[in-house]
């Protein structure tokens, strides 16, 4: 059985997270957006996705940096599965040999 304080913490977390997921929809669904707001919206997916991978660039671990650069090149020309498999292999190989 969960301890009740842990349970409360989990429920509060769940509520907070769900609120972040629906806030934009509830606030924006009946509005007409200006071209500037649309431009901001259009560029936000790329901004967010690249921010997700910042820790890999900032790690300072040479093996990770080399693997990441090679993966970026693969990503320019190849499909998702090929890129994912290459990325994992690069990370495995360089971490094995460089550390």
């Amino acid at each position, binding site marked *: 059985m969960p301890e009740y304080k842990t349970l409360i913490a989990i429920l509060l977390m769940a509520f907070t997270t769900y609120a972040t997921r629906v806030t934009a929809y509830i606030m924006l669904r009946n509005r007409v957006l200006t071209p500037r*707001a649309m431009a901001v919206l259009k560029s936000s997916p790329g*901004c967010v996705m690249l921010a*997700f991978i910042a820790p890999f660039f900032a790690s300072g671990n040479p093996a990770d940096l080399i693997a990441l650069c090679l993966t970026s090149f693969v990503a320019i020309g190849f499909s998702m599965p090929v890129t994912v498999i290459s990325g994992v292999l690069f990370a495995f190989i360089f971490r094995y040999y460089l550390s």
Partner: protein
Amino acid sequence: MSEQRVDVSSAKTQKDNVQNSKKEILRGLKDGLPVLLGVIPFALVLGAQATHKGLNPFEVPLMTGLNFAGGSEFAAIQIWTSPPRLLLIIAVTLLVNSRHILMGATLVPLLSRFPKRKILPALFFMTDESWALSYNDAYSKKNRTAPLFSMPYYMAVSLSFYTMWVFCTTLGALIGPVLGDLHQYGFDMAFPAVFLVLVRGMWSGLYKAIPWIISLAVSVAFCHFIPGLWYVIAGPVTGLGIAALLGGNDA
């Protein structure tokens, strides 16, 4: 006579719709698969760390199933104490997941053709991955006329992630101590690989990419110099500020 005809044609559209949904579901599962496999080690590690911090194998799926946002769960587990500090946990969850607000905003125009009662439950399942894949899919070149958000595709990605996440975090909680260090196998690189491919898919010239590059640079700088998870907010907010400045000149 005419009634019959209507019946026949509506039955036919219904059949078409079912077949179409099936195709969309399969497409979602297929596109989600490489990312899904990359998530497994994260989930195992999270489950293992959570038991290490004193959560039991019943509380772990409760958290990952009700909250269902990996980043915030990792962050919360790092700062978990017994008893947990509620305000701190809420603040960290809000900080890490505030990116959902931006992600949700990008979906608003795409979701306008669905009723609210469908959207509100569907948004519970929005993750970095299901959002990114579905957003990309909606704007992909096959939809020549207008961007089209596929609900069965989104739900297929989301539910397969949900099942895998809850199952593997529980498994991690149960077998955690015997796993050892998963980092050395390189599975974590699946994550940036996915996002690099998705950003490549959205690429439409260097000028439009200026906010992205600035977002990345600011995030990396924050990551390097400022401890904590501020980078997830600082980078995109700076990038979007630049996008707002450039947005007026270019349409």
